[in-house]
């Protein structure tokens, strides 16, 4: 995994700069949008690639994401939300929408695989995870493995209950109760 290993104050400074640039973007400042792009496009592209598994579509979605940021920067709640969380959510939503338009996850032919930068977790890279990541991981690990698994799958695959239930080979009702129970426990675990 490639994760930020920044010290908390560096992280805070980065966050503040992004928030500031979002505020400027909301006022129509193009250079601010460009700064946001350069600061975040690698991460957001990684997200799009992970979901779409295809470079061209991922780049198209990435473009759309920054146009959404351009139009809706004003909706980012300054002082409340984390800029990266907001951006990642936009990217993930757009990518999932695109995935759904396309008709669902595609299985890539082997020869195309090499052209896709692999955004999957890489265990060989030494990482320092953020506090939030560590906390969420711990809480997910505290769930039944199958429950945690479907939550992660749902997050990345963007499939509806019915399709996920089919893939997991369980009735939709069972899957729903796994997810709901898992999410409730996750919420309780994350709230101190």
């Amino acid at each position, binding site marked *: *995994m*490639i994760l*930020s290993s920044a010290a908390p104050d560096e992280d805070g400074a980065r966050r503040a700069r992004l928030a500031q640039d979002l505020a400027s973007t909301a006022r*129509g400042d*193009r250079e601010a*949008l*460009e700064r946001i*792009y*350069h600061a975040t*496009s*690698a*991460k957001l*592209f*990684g*997200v799009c*690639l992970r979901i779409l598994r295809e470079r061209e579509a*991922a*780049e198209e979605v*990435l*473009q759309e994401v920054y*146009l959404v940021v*351009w139009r809706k920067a*004003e909706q980012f*709640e300054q002082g409340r939300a*984390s800029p*990266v*969380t907001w951006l*990642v*959510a936009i990217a*993930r*939503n757009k990518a*999932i929408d695109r995935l*759904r338009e396309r008709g669902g996850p595609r299985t890539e032919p082997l020869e195309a695989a090499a052209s896709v*930068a*692999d*955004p999957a*977790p*890489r265990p060989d890279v030494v990482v320092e995870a*953020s506090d*939030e*990541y560590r906390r*969420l*991981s711990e809480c997910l690990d505290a769930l039944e493995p199958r429950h945690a698994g479907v*939550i*992660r799958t*749902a*997050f990345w*695959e*963007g*499939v*509806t*209950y*019915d399709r*996920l239930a089919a893939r997991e080979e369980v009735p939709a009702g069972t899957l729903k109760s796994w*997810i*709901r129970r898992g*999410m409730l426990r*996750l*919420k309780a675990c*994350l709230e101190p």
Partner: protein
Amino acid sequence: MLAAEYVLGLLDLAERREAEARMRRDGAFSAEVQAWAERLAPLAEDVGEAAPSPEVWARIARELDRPDLAANDDQRALRTWRRLALGASGLAAASLAAVMLLLARPPEPAAQVAALTTPQGATALVVAFDPDTGALLVTPGPGLRAAGHTPHLWLVNPDGGVQLVGAIDPAKAVTHDLPPALSRRAGAASGLALSLEPPGHRPIDRPGGPTVATGEFADL
């Protein structure tokens, strides 16, 4: 759990649209969705970074020049007006003359602004409408006393009939994107009215409660 399911992407299209509509009207639900997005967001840290092609930014930059996006300068101006108007002077500044001063330039095409006032002269609602984008900016005012009722905004047609725009959040300013047909009606409306609907009542073609404020659009 709907908020969590929405964030996870588990809902089908119809359910998603419903959840999105609910987010627009229900601040608490919207906050719940936000909370779930924040809880789950660290999962995205799991993904590696990847460099997009250099052309991607160039394409984005070109798109920013497109007329329909440039028109968002008008929406930006309207939002700036809202922020300024809601600032120190509250909605006192939202008299039409004040709005004209606050805007750096009149938006192109002409936006329309209406202050809906009570019989006592208090401003209950300020509505700014951009006919080109269909954006309707609704800002509650000090004269709005909802007291458990749900305010609803109506267009008054030239022939005297009324057309429902929708329920209004009395607690905060909201921009609504009107669908084309309603946007056309709004452009042609001779006035606006605000009714207070009994709790749980959803009016269709006429108010079910008292009309508490009225106003007319004026061009800027």
